[in-house]
C-alpha cells in the first residue's frame, strides 16, 4: 500500500520569495536540500523549455542539467534587488540555449539599478520593488486571451522569429506584432508601468 503525502502548495507553485530563500541558502551555506527543492521545481521545466527550442531529448537533458549546475555555481551572483529569481534562472537557461543550440553569440548590457540615470524618469530604487512583484505578473498572465498567450508562448519558448510565428499561426506579420504588443502592454500597464 502506498501512502501519498500531499505536497504543500508552496512546493507545487513556489513564490518568488520562496525561490529567493532557496537561492540565498545555496549562496550563503551551499545548502543541498534547498538546491534539491529548486531542482525539483525547475529542472523538468528547463528541459521542457529546451525541447520547445528544438533540442532532442538527450540534448535537453544535458542542457537542463547544465543550467542547474550553473544555478548552483553562480548562486552568489544572484541579486534579489536586480531581478526576480525566476528571471535570473530564465536568463541562465536562455543563454545556454543561445550558446549550445543556436551556437550564437549574444550581446547584453548590465541592467543594474545604478546604470539607470535619474535624469530620465524612474530611478533604480523605485524599480527594484516592482521587479520583485513577479508573482503578481504570474496572475496577470493567466488573464491574457488565448490568442495573446499563444504568440507570447511562441515568442519566448519556441525561439521563433516573428515571421516564423506568422507561418506557424498562418497570420499576417502585422497581426502577430499587434497581439504581442497588446499582451506586453497589458501586462506592463497592469504592473504599474507606463504603457
Amino acid at each position, binding site marked *: 500500500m502506498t501512502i501519498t503525502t500531499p505536497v504543500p502548495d508552496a512546493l507545487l507553485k513556489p513564490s518568488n520569495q520562496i525561490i529567493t530563500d532557496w537561492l540565498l541558502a545555496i549562496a550563503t551555506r551551499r545548502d543541498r536540500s534547498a538546491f534539491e527543492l529548486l531542482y*525539483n521545481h525547475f529542472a*523538468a521545466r528547463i528541459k521542457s523549455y529546451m525541447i520547445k527550442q528544438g533540442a532532442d531529448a538527450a540534448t535537453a537533458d544535458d542542457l537542463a542539467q547544465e543550467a542547474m549546475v550553473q544555478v548552483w555555481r553562480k548562486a552568489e551572483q544572484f541579486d534579489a534587488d536586480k531581478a526576480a529569481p525566476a528571471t535570473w534562472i530564465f536568463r541562465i537557461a536562455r543563454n545556454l540555449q543561445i550558446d549550445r543550440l543556436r551556437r550564437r553569440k549574444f550581446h547584453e548590457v548590465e541592467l543594474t539599478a545604478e546604470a539607470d540615470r535619474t535624469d530620465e524618469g524612474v530611478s533604480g530604487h523605485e524599480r527594484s520593488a516592482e*521587479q520583485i512583484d513577479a508573482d503578481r505578473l504570474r496572475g496577470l498572465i493567466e488573464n491574457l486571451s488565448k490568442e495573446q498567450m499563444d504568440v507570447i508562448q511562441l515568442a519566448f519558448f519556441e525561439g521563433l522569429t516573428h515571421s516564423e510565428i506568422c507561418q506557424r499561426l498562418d497570420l499576417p506579420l502585422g497581426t502577430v506584432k499587434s497581439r504581442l504588443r497588446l499582451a506586453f502592454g497589458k501586462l506592463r500597464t497592469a504592473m504599474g508601468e507606463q504603457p
Partner: protein
Amino acid sequence: MKINHHPDDCTIIAYAAGALTEGFSLVLAAHLEYCPLCRERLTDAQTLGGALLMDLQPTQPPAGGLDDIWARIESASAEEPRTAATATASDEVLPGVLLPFLEGGFDSIPWRSLAPGIGHHLFDDVESGQGGVRLLSIAPGITIPEHTHGGGELTLVLKGAYQDEIGYFRRGDLADLDPSVSHRPVAARDEPCICLIATDLPLRFSGMVGRMLQPFIGI
C-alpha cells in the same frame, strides 16, 4: 540625452527570448546603454520570461537526476556560455558594447567609400543571418537612395543626426524597420552622421541610382 525613437515591443520581447541574431543583439545592447526606458522594458520582458518558465508544463525530469548534478559539480566540467562580455552602460560617445570592435574610437575606423559622401565599414566577424552589421558615415546633407528591407533592420545613430519619412533621429535613437518600410534618410547639415546598422537580409534599393549602387554597396 533625450531619446525619441525606441525599438518595437516585439523586438524587445525577441531580445529577452534570445531569438535575435548576434548582430541585432549588438545594436540593441548599444541602444540600451543610451536608454534607461528600454532597460526597464527589457527587465519587464525578462521578468515575463521568468514567470512563464516557472509555470511551464514540466516534462519528465532530466535523465541522471540529482546524482548526475552532484557528479558534474565535483568534476568541474561545466563551461561558461559563450555569450559576449556584458557591458556596463556609460555616457561615453561610443557604447561600451562596441569597444571590442572599434578599439581606437571613431577616428580609427577604416572607412571604405561607397559613393561620394558615404563611407562604409562592415563588422566581418558578427553573425546576422543573411545580413550583417555595419557602420555607415553620411556626410552632412547627403541622402541614402530610397530602399526597403528584405527582412528587418535596426539603425542606431551614434553621432550626428538624420531625417527620413519616419522622423528626426539623433544620437541614441533607434529605428526599428520591418519589410513594409521604405525610406530615404538624409544626414543633417551640421556634421557627418554615423549609424550602426544591423540587417538580417540584404537591402532592396528601389530607384535607378540605388539599383546601380547595389552591386557596389552589397548591403
